[in-house]
Each structure stands twice: as C-alpha cells, then as structure tokens.
C-alpha cells in the first residue's frame, strides 16, 4: 500500500523553509515512552488494531521524543474510538483528524479547511461535537470518540440518521456529509425532536459548498420522525 502523505505545504514552500516536521524522516525511529516496547512490536500493535493500517511513514516519525521534558505527555496512548481501544503513537501537537485518517485509517472523517472553519472533520467526543482538525489527539485520552465509521450497526445496517440522509437525498457531492451526519447525530441524541430552527442552529457549524442545506435539514427532520 502506498504511503499516505499529508499535504502539509503550499507549492511555493521549499524543503529549506519547511518546519522541522517531516513525516518521511523516521531515522529517529519509534521512541515509545515505554522502553521495552520495540519498534517492531509497536508497528505490529498499530496494524493489528487498525481497520486499515494506512500509514507507514506518516505514523513513524518520533524526533523530539528523546528530548521531551519531564512531565510532558506520553507518546504511546490508548484511544477509545467507536467503542474500541486503539493503541497509537501520537505526537504532542498531532490533531485528532490526522490520527484518525493517517494512522488509524478512519478516512470517513474529512479535512476541509483544517482551521475550524468548515465542519468536514466533525466527530463526537463524549457526546459533544468537536472539530477534529482543531483537537489535539492527546486531549482525547480517556474519552469516547465517535466517527462516522462507528455509526452503523454490526450487521451493516445504517444508523437512522444515515438512512434518513439517503432517503432525503441529503448530500450532493458528499464531502461535507460525514461531518453533517455527526452534527445531526449529536443533536438528536440530546434533543430527539428538534424544531427545524433548532436543527438549523445545531447544524450551523458545518459548511456545505454544494449548498445542500435544506436537504440536510429535511434529513434531520426525517431522522427525528417528523415529516420534513
């Protein structure tokens, strides 16, 4: 499988002007905080617990681990994602969107703006919607993260919100859809029969460049059992 690379620079930037953050350089190897954990064991651990071990280079850079000051966060963490515990090596500055997509293969969560301005990356953490592009993975240790992959039932039956999005032809291009679905799920879990205006407010942190807003609102109303 080809290594997934994160498009982290604008075209004009040169290698020299790039910051000290290069996922292809894994000379430093894995510096797990637990010294007994060898690099091989760690890689195996990640693959065994991933749906698809999408990342090779992306997951492996660990410079900085040796010179970490005392009291800083550990690198090898356990995350609760969609009800499963996932062990993963996480940089201090790594965003949850990055970890999900490039280390855990959970690419249902999209990255649009990466600046908290679009909602494509919306996930639910402890029942509340968050922009995963603007959440440090280190801050979700011990918390329950839900992504769009976690919604369907074990037998593949779609979540009622997903089904309603299909039935109402909610999406157009679909890029914003996972984020829209997560906002709708969080809303309906808190407020199962929202008014259309309440739904509009709850979905207002998700941009749709196709402008399918009304279709999405119809979907939310249908999912809540109210005719749209």
């Amino acid at each position, binding site marked *: 499988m080809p290594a997934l690379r*994160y498009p982290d620079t604008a075209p004009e930037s040169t290698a020299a002007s790039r910051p000290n*953050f290069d996922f292809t350089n894994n000379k430093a190897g894995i510096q797990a905080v637990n010294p007994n954990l060898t690099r091989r064991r760690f890689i195996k651990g990640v693959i065994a617990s991933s749906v698809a071990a999408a990342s090779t280079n992306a997951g492996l850079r660990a410079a900085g681990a040796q010179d970490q000051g005392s*009291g800083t966060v550990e690198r090898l963490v356990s995350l609760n994602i969609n009800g499963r515990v996932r062990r993963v090596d996480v*940089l201090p*500055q790594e965003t949850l969107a990055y970890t999900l997509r490039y280390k855990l293969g959970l690419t249902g969560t999209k990255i649009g703006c990466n600046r908290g301005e679009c909602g494509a990356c919306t996930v639910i953490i402890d029942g509340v919607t968050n922009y995963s592009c603007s959440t440090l993975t*280190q801050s979700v240790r011990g918390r329950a993260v839900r992504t769009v992959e976690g919604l369907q039932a074990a037998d593949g039956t779609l979540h009622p919100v997903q089904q309603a999005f299909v039935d109402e032809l909610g999406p157009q291009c679909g890029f914003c859809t996972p984020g829209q679905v997560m906002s709708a799920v969080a809303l309906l879990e808190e407020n199962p029969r929202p008014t259309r205006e309440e739904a509009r407010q709850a979905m207002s*942190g998700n941009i749709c460049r196709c402008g399918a807003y009304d279709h999405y609102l119809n979907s939310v109303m249908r999912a809540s059992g109210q005719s749209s």
Partner: protein
Amino acid sequence: MPSYDVMPDVQLYQPAELEDALNLLDEHKNDGWLLGGGQDTYGWLKDRAKNPKALIDVNGISALKGIRPVDGGLEIGAATTLREIIRDPVVNSDYALLAQAAGRVASPQIRNVGTLGGNLVQDARCWYYRRGLACYRAGGNICYADSPEGMNREHALFNASRCVAVSPSDTATALAALDATMVVASVDGTRELPADRFFAGPATHITRMTTLEPGEMLTAVRIPARWAGKRFYFEKVADRDVWDFALVSIAVAMDVDGATIGESRFVCGGVACTPYRLTDVERAVRGKALSDDTGDQAAALASKGARALNYNHFKIPLMENLVRRAIRV
C-alpha cells in the same frame, strides 16, 4: 506565504493542579503558551506565525472549571467552556447578556470546546498580523492595515495608536457591560482587576490585548450582582451569522424604572482594540424614557470621536443604529 496543515514540534503539558500549571508557566515565561480549547491557538501554530515551545493545557484543572455563586454574583472558572456558559440556568436567568454573547461566538463546535479564558485572551484577528507579517503588533514598525493600500474594513474607529486592530472577543463586550472583574494568578499570588484594566489598547500594550504579564494566567471571571436580571440588549453584526467576528456588536445593561432609564452600560465590540464603552450615551439616556426619540438623540453621540479608516466608515452608522435598537421599546 506558505501555509501548513500540521503543527510544528511543541511540548505538551497537561497539569491537573493549578499550582503545577503556574509553575510551568513561570518556567516557560518566554516560550510557554496556555491552551484552553485551542481554537485560537492552532491557527497560529499551523501558520507558524507564533512559535511557542510548550503548550500548557488547562483543561485538566478542575479548580478552573465551573460556574458558582460568589457574593451574590457569579464566578466562572477560566477553563469553563462557552457551551457550559450558554446552557447554565443562572447565567440565563440573571446574566442573559453573557449567554447571548457567548452564543454568538464562532460556531457550535467551537463553542463546545472554546473556554471563557481563551475567548477573553484571544489575539487580534487582523489578517496581516495573523499571517505573520512583522507589523507593530508583531514587534515591527509598520501597520499594514492603516496604509493607503491597506484593507481595513474590519478595523478600529477609536483609540488606535499605530495599530488599528479591534478586540475580537464577543464575551469581552458583554462582561465589560456587566462590570466583571478578572482574577489573575501567577506563582507570586493572585490579583483582581476590573475588565477595563484587563483589556489593553495599543497605546499601552501594542503586542498584547490584555495587561496579563508573562507568567500570569486568568483563573476566573467574577460577575457582580449589580446587573443581575436587569434589562439587557446584545446584538452582533457580522458578515455571516456563524464563524465571523463582529463588525460591530453592542452589549447593554440598564436599570429601567417603569419606562425610565436609570444607570446603564453601553459597550461596543469591533470598534476599538478593547471593549469600547459609550459613556456619553450612558449619560445622555439617564432619566430619559425608553423610546425611539431617546434612541435618536443617543445615537448621535455613539460615534463621537470616531476616526474612520479607508474602508470602515460603514461602522459609524452601524454603531449608531445598534444604540438606537438597544433603546427601542
């Protein structure tokens, strides 16, 4: 100018005790950065426009969280999220001005994690500065916004001094109108200061928006009982209702007896580098009836002393209209 999607190497501390956080902050006086919800922070890091070496996450410190009654008023911990504030029953019943302002910050997802402390201490949104240009605010000696070619539609009408950036915080405007005080701590102890001495303009502090010194942290905001349950008015005008910062906003608290206005606070956001108090308006409406006439008279005073830039004249009538609307019956 390059743009990056990942953040640079940085150390992350997640202390559980306030004392540990203050010690870390003291240790990292020059390269430390407090982390609330991170919603202002991550853009700075991704753009490489600020380069702290150590992030000190305050979200694990329970002493900084929650809303509690104090001396008849309310104390809100600095790490309390805007979401909690918006949903708090006492804030809604007695200090609805704050709930309304907090409810207009950014978007639901940002309010879910953004903290009150982070919202109050967030940095200026002038795009020249945010993109890492070496302007006055960044320690240089030029202002790109206040130049013949500069785009300054969002910039200040009042109290500019070299820098013409405005206060971006919606909660700051409301808290200034509520006469809130700020509780500030460092390894050397605690001090309390009123909102108008907490927010700082460019004449005194051109590289920061508050009077917080390096090593200091906001721990709580105290809202006195003075304005509890009074007549409030909040309105924020922005290009879009979600995400966008105020072009002009207004937060008003007033005593009203029958239809007669007593003492009041009129504070505008988006027109100066700090929440901007309209003392002339407050004086003019005292003893007058809540009415369109009073609104018309007061509106004319609202923008007194405004110095418009090339592209922000529109803020003058906008301010005046917001004052009118606040006084309408």
